[in-house]
């Protein structure tokens, strides 16, 4: 049974079509990279899945619920946590407050405060720097620390699927390494399903897993990251060779 299933999803902004007829399924515990050049529609696809931009057509199922056109908060409450591009920390809130925002979705359920507290400790164990600076304003963190914060914040909601848009954007390579190291470890620990958008395929090839290539709003390739990454089909599809 798949955790996430998209069928024939399209996203439009006015007359502009950003995503056309995307169909795929993602199984529980899987790791999927969506790569592709600028403007391929990767971010638009993620925004549609998270409910920020409702799809113009098609259907999305998550955890046995039809989430097409549902509000972002409803989708988040089903266990789909989105980390958007550009590290949207709440700059005037402290680090700890940032982390706690998402725990409210469990309020009212039995023992949620205790669980939130233990989640907080787990995030702090994963990212010790966040614990060190827990009471400082999130806006004062460096780029890498902010990336850790938004990933930690997504984990605080105890999601089943985390979708991350360009975790390496604007980070030094060694910081990106750290972020990925943590992500991979977390995935093993919690049987998380990961959906990661990256512009380049190099990360996907290093980490392994499944990779899809998007171009012009469509999925043009889908397969094993390492095998695909080395293939000439990938090069050709990425840059659009042989079409002109």
């Amino acid at each position, binding site marked *: 049974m798949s955790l996430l299933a998209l069928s024939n999803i399209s996203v439009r902004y006015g007359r502009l079509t950003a995503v056309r007829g995307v169909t795929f399924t993602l199984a529980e515990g899987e790791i999927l990279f969506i790569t592709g050049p600028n403007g391929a529609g990767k971010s638009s696809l993620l925004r549609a899945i*998270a409910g*920020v*931009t409702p799809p113009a057509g098609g259907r999305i199922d998550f955890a046995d619920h039809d989430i097409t056109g549902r*509000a*972002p*908060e409803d989708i*988040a*409450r089903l266990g789909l*946590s*989105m980390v*958007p591009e550009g590290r*949207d920390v*709440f*700059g*005037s*809130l402290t680090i700890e*407050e*940032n982390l*706690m*925002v*998402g725990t*409210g*979705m469990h*309020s009212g359920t039995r023992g949620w405060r205790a669980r939130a507290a233990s989640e907080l400790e787990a995030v702090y164990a994963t990212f010790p720097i966040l614990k060190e600076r827990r009471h400082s304003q999130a*806006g004062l963190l460096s780029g890498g620390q902010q990336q850790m914060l938004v990933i930690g*914040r*997504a984990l605080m*909601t105890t999601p089943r699927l985390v979708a991350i848009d360009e975790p390496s954007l604007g980070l030094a390579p060694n910081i990106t390494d750290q972020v990925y190291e943590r992500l991979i470890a977390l995935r093993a620990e919690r049987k998380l399903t990961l959906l990661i958008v990256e512009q380049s395929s190099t990360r996907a090839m290093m980490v392994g897993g499944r990779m899809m290539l998007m171009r012009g709003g469509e999925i043009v390739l889908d397969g094993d990251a390492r095998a695909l990454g080395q293939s000439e089909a990938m090069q050709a599809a990425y840059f659009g060779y042989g079409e002109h």
Partner: protein
Amino acid sequence: MGGLMQVIFDALSLGSLYALGALGIALIFGVMRLVNFAHGDVIAFCVFALLWPSVDAVAIIFAGNLPWFLLIPFTLAVGAGLSVLSEVVVFRRFRRANPATMMIASFALGFVIRYFLLMLFSSRPKSISLLPGLSQPVEILGARIPLLQLITILVTIAVLIGLTAFLRRTRFGLEMRAAAENFTMARMLGVRANRVIMGAFALSGALAAAIALILGSQTGTANIMMGASVMLMAFIATVIGGMGSLAGAVIAGFALGAIATVMQVILPPDARAFRDAFVYGAVILVLIFRPQGLLAARGTKERV
């Protein structure tokens, strides 16, 4: 000495009104980028809610005769209720509209409320006596201050402390602060948009009711235009404070109250009639040198 104290208390109590008004506007602007021009009419509505509908010059008191411990919660509930109703009936439809459209809608709503009051009560100001015990003076450091003025200041301080505690210490406050900074991101973390926005409207409406009680007791009249002048100054305070910044709104509210009071004292008698021109001149100066406001709010980031 007594004269100086008098000026200080005048400035603080006038500033309190502006600060409470500015807070009501900034709270809603923070979560939905709506400049709510109906706020002033909510203030007027709260005063008239204490009267029976009639077109006579002397008001027929309805809830206004309640003892204070019932009168205050009743009025706060009316303000919060009307404000939440305006969100559910009107502003919710404009959630995805641009700020200018929302602003026009709020103007229209304000006129609907105002003309509804006009229909029931006529445009003639009515004399009312609200919380009459508060008009007696008290002596502080050689100045004779109306008790109401003192209470206005104390109530405002209590509201500010209470609101700060609410925003800093409660889960709902945390969600409101997160939503004010980045609404879409807050929703992606499961924060319920409607709940947060209705909460902001309820708080804002209760603040309008507090102003209504103070204004009603202070002036002893009910006038369908009574909210408008406070609303204008309060709006200016939110702009000077930095749109959406709560602390900025409060500081600017008190600053405007102080400027207006000081001008009243230092301007030559012939120029006093034009006091407001000098106050607005000061506003222009502030905006020339700090167009983003005294405390620029974070998270003016586009919302979707």
